[in-house]
């Protein structure tokens, strides 16, 4: 079973992945795969509907579904394929405020970056867990407390920290 974690630790995955809208069960939180002719299940509440997208999809294509969704899951086919970082930034920039999940074999060393780019949670395959159990994810997050960039989430921005004593607005 894959592991789901957010910045608080390992969490129970309340969502189930289904193949088609027809599989939507009342009262279940479902994640559908992206399709060109995507039809979301009628009447299924937005906060119980999720969508999994490949990382070569133009995030722009997603905006029309925002109101009908509670979660977007972004595929990371490999940890070294960093397109998902920019997809998260784009989705957040376009106004996505719902849950954002990174799904794939990303590694603990990327956890901070994922959170900073706008992901809330990370779903990793079971086989990674044996090598990189939860303490490594927590340790990785604790190791680096600063970053230079502004406008990203999480760690303290050095630019903001320098600005603070000057009394400037963030």
């Amino acid at each position, binding site marked *: 079973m894959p592991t789901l974690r957010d910045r608080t630790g390992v969490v129970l995955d309340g969502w189930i992945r289904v193949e088609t809208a027809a599989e939507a069960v009342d009262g279940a939180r479902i994640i559908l795969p992206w399709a060109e002719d995507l039809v979301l299940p009628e009447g299924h509440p937005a906060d119980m509907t999720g969508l999994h997208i490949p990382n070569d999809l*133009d995030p722009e294509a997603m905006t029309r579904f925002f109101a009908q969704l509670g979660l977007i899951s972004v595929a990371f086919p490999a*940890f*070294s*394929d*960093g*397109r998902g*970082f*920019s*997809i998260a*930034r*784009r989705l957040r*920039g*376009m106004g996505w405020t719902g849950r954002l999940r990174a799904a794939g074999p990303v*590694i603990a*060393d*990327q956890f*901070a*970056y994922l959170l*900073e*780019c706008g992901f809330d949670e990370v779903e990793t395959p079971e086989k990674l867990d044996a*090598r*990189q159990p939860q303490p*490594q994810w927590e*340790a*990785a997050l604790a*190791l*680096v*407390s*600063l*970053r*230079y*960039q*502004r*406008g*990203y989430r999480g760690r303290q921005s*050095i*630019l903001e*920290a*320098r*600005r603070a004593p*000057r009394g*400037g607005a963030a």
Partner: protein
Amino acid sequence: MYRYDEFDAQIVRERVAEFRAQVARRLDGSLTEDEFKPLRLMNGLYLQLHAYMLRVAIPYGTLSSRQMRQLATIAERWDRGYGHFTTRQNIQFNWPVLRDVPDMLAALAEVEMHAIQTSGNCIRNTTSDPFAGAATDEIEDPRITCELIRQWSTLHPEFTFLGRKFKIAVTAASRDRAAIRVHDIGIEIVRNDAGETGYRILVGGGQGRTPMIAKELRGFLPRADLLPYLEAAMRVYNLMGRRDNKYKARIKILVHELGIERYREMVEAEFARGDRGAAPDAEETARIAAYFTPPALIPRDAGGLAQACAAHPDFAAWVDQNGHPHKVPGHRAMTVSLKPVGGAPGDATAEQMRVLAKAAERFSLDEMRVTHEQNIVLPHVAEADLFALWTLLKSQGLDAANRGLVTDIIACPGLDYCALATARSIPVAQAISTRFADPDRQREIGPLAIKISGCINACGHHHVGHIGILGLDKAGVESYQITLGGEPANDAALGARTGPGFAYDEVPGAIDTLVETYLGLRQPGETFLQTYRRVGMPPFKDALYADAA
């Protein structure tokens, strides 16, 4: 030069601790070799032919004496007593042991240095004009912009797992000494009609197996927009760049395939959408700029320079050949050549590093620059001190008077060190340099840039050499292709191939033939490149392949 504040120091310390933990996790199996590889590369650690290689970042090539002395100490303590200055204005140590690397990084951190992002598919060390702050033809010191980019690009959460490496160069001078046209992004500091300074942005240049000259992305970008604009340009590349083939993953291929107009539309749309969140405020820019305040040099008279030159022809030749005009009268920016005849281009021993540190301390306001030609510049030397400086440099064989001449050869490490190389390059450079050892002949030939790469990845910049040499493997035998007419500066051009390749032993003779052909054809005052541009390839080709015809 820029000095770390508490935050800069802390982020480097934390990164060292993080890498120490990553090494431990690799050793205990938490990280596979595939997972560890990009992490170690982002810390400048390569697995080479014989050993690991650690590449240390020298931001925009600027070094203090204290830092140079620490590099000397590192070379002695953890390497074999020398280091290799690179075409990216960095230094490489070729023989470290993996378990020592965290200690080497800690030693670097003591002097505000690191190896972050000197390799890997991320934004690499930003390079610049080695005469920054001294050059007579610059609008301002480009290193203020470089430092902004250094900080912004360090451990960037979004751009640390790009499709391929990403290189940025900045110039503020009318003469481009930073080769911005062969970078992923080239930045030129310019003034618009209203007299405001801003940025001209070029994109999609590069060398490697598919060399391309950069195209203009934006003619004038207001200063405050630089980082948000770079973020937009990087985001489009990260989302759209090819991931199916590492040889087609650089931004030059994306720009080529989309066309510059389409790429520009996408970047401008992304930029328009953005919230300018990345931009530093004016105070932060001013804080950085304060570190690059022009030095308070007092105009001086030449203090006996003419007499010393008259008495010591070797010294006179060095001043003439290795000197560059300085903003402040009575001063020069001096190039210390790391290309002694028969030497390995860019190598310096620990003792030489210490002499360079001493020279900078005494004669150049404690500052040095590493050039992409693999030499060292002392940017602020009073003419009255030149003889004392030369005497000091001579004590360690650092007095070669050959900047820009036929023996000032750029060469990648090649098959002697590099796991990617297909042929040797350092020994080829040594053989050519030895053949042209006569200093009078070198001066007679005049400016001539020979650049040698030991494989198609072009780390030796052969595409932009006046004479470029590319070493390949032809069925187990080294074969060297020669190109002519390359140039990295304002009138950037890619070299054209002469024809079939040459065997290892034939290369120095072939170069000699090209040089003799040029000397026979040139008009008064013409350089090799000018002659080539006037007469074209045929006479050179005829001379090279005469025997075969």
